[in-house]
């Protein structure tokens, strides 16, 4: 596990949280170049990287994620950001084949959320911050196709957008796999979406639908 953030205190805090949760933090770095070097030396299962880092403090984290996706597609990348911007999340998911995540910084206040996200990313899954998904699901629409969904179906839709697998949705909503499958099927039918082949592509499809 590698943590990259230019704010030393925040970086140390993340490192400590991850270590406490049983992760092996092999390096803590302050910018994207150092991160790439560290990954080159000793590829970890996943990296946690701040979206804004020196030198320009704009989207270095996203750029690093893109580079890593090319050179080390099996290293999961979790980007921490202060912005509730679906645009960034979409860019991230589109840039990597698997193992990417976009999480708001404030989620680290709940160590459980951070470690859950890191675990999913390391395992090749996709993580989209619930705040980002909520923004997309909740946006004002003139003719809202989401109105056709039941409360539960909307919940399932949001969880799909967050990158959760059917299995994970079962666990979170305390439902049987069959029921969840039925909900998922209903959502796709009602929204006139094609069932995606895997969870990650399903995230893209749902996000793209919500943004359109």
């Amino acid at each position, binding site marked *: 596990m590698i943590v990259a953030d230019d704010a030393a205190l925040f970086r140390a805090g993340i490192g400590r949280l991850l270590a406490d949760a049983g992760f092996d933090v092999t390096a803590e770095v302050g910018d994207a170049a150092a991160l790439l070097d560290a990954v080159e030396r000793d590829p970890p299962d996943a990296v946690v990287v701040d979206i804004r880092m020196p030198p320009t403090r704009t989207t270095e984290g996203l750029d690093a994620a893109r580079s890593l996706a090319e050179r080390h597609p099996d290293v999961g990348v979790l980007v921490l950001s*202060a912005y*509730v911007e679906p*645009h960034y999340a979409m860019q991230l998911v589109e840039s990597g084949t698997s193992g990417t995540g976009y999480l708001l910084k*404030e989620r680290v206040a709940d160590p459980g959320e951070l470690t859950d996200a890191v675990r999913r990313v390391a395992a090749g899954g996709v993580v989209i911050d619930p705040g980002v998904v909520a923004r997309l699901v909740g946006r*004002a629409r003139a003719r809202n196709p989401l109105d056709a969904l039941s409360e539960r179906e909307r919940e399932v839709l949001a969880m799909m957008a967050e990158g959760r697998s059917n299995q994970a949705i079962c666990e979170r909503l305390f439902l049987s796999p069959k029921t969840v499958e039925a909900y998922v099927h209903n959502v796709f039918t009602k929204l006139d979406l094609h069932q995606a082949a895997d969870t990650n592509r399903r995230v893209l499809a749902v996000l793209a639908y919500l943004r359109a």
Partner: protein
Amino acid sequence: MQRLSPQGRKVIGAAGLLAGVGAGCALVWGGYEVPADLLAPTLVLEVAVGWSFVTVGLVAWTRRPDSRTGALMVVLGFAWFARFAVAVAVRPAFVIGVLLSSVYLSVLVHLLATFPGGRVQNRAERVVVTVGYLLSAPLDAVFLLLGAQRGLGEGPPPGGLVIAARSGAFTPSGVDLAVQAVVVALFLSLLAIVFTRWRTAGPAQRRSLTPGVLGGAVIVGTILVERTAILLLIPPSVGVVFAWSAQVVLVVWPVALLLGLLRSQLDRSAVGRLIVELGAGLPVPERLRSVLARTLHDPTLELAYWLPERRAFVDASGVPVAVEANGGRGLTRLERDGEPIAVLVHDPVLSAEPELVAAVAAGAGMAVQNERLHAEVRSQLREVRASRARIVEAADGARRRVERDLHDGAQQRLVTVALALRLARTQLGSASRAEIGALLDEAGAELAGALEELRELARGIYPVLLTDAGLGPALTSLAERSPVPAVVGDVPARRWPDAVERTCYFVVSEALANAAKHAGAGQVVIDVRADGGGLCVQVADDGRGGAEAAGSGLRGLADRVAALGGELSVHSPRGGGTRVIATVPCG
């Protein structure tokens, strides 16, 4: 009136000379007995009056070809001589003489009623002039027919309207009296017209009116007294005195008329002076106006310049002015190549001399054009100053809002967190773990609230996506947050200069906020397209419309857009939605 050619002038002059000689001959050798003591003065006066009108009329015609007065004076002179046909003792001459006996009076009425332009300008003038002509030849023709029926035969001339009958007992018929009454009424109307014109004239026109009007008033007054005398059945011998005095005045009057015409001619030379004066140096603001006011003898004259871009009139300092033909002011529009450049707001009587105003305006043409450009610059400068002040004010307002939002929002919450932590600290020993935990959760919730508020505040101050990803993603994000459903059309993926993207973004942001706050809109459509080298952004909602383009939000947007040399237009018909369109050039 046509300009008089030198040949024309010679021919008319010679004809006038001959007519005078002919009239004299008719008087002396016509065949009627004229008392010897009367012959010489009559001869001199009568011929002098005719020649005076013809010659002075020719001068006036030549010097003021724009006025018909000169021509009318010439005609009057010939009409004057034509009366003397009656002095030739043959029947055709008698008939002609009677028919033409009072035409000169009709012409006089015409001349005076229309002085100094010589053109009928309103209904009252037209009535007076028409009645004047009807009372001469046509009426005399009627009298002639009646006289023939009454068997007047080859008797002495009936006198008609011209000279009171000189012989025998005077016993006017009822018809005669009625005619005289109409004549009196006509002359009274004429006096009224002339007096009104003189009274309402501005200084410029009064100057040229006075001599002619005075003379005309004396003549008409004399004629009036003479005719009133007939009406009052006073013997004609008294009238004769007046007729003589009227003739004396008639000799001098043409000169007075000429003087009047030449006085406004002097104003024409003022145009020359104007050009010299303007040529001496470019006028400072206001000076052009005062020079024009002096030239036109109208101290109240105002000059408004047309700014085609703003579609408005402004004064010399660039302040917009309303130009309307109300309040009894006269307007003269100055044009160049069919495009208005300015308008003169002046004393209405100057409208009677459009040629003079036009000549002055033409003389000042370059200066006016030049001054208009200055006014335009000043107007733009004023607008820039005003918009700069508004931009500063808007920035200050935005800072105040940020300050308030920080205090009322995030700071309030952080204070609460601080208190919660302090309370937790003081209760560490006494309270249960659960109580302390609840307190810390409270602090955590307040912190999360503070974070959320800070995030929104920061976004409002500057959208990070605009610099990182460009206009398209930034607008999409804006639409995703909009409380009113908003759709963003395809935005060209390329980047524009920062200032252009920023301005377009804030146009959309403000328009969206308005649609949500004021328009009660159900949906907003945002459209961005490359427009030449620049960008065109359109935000259209389906709300209630009626948005004021001068409202502070839209005004601020217009200032922003204008600062980049762009243009913002707002179409907001009541009940028809609002469409805000900004066109921003690049570079």
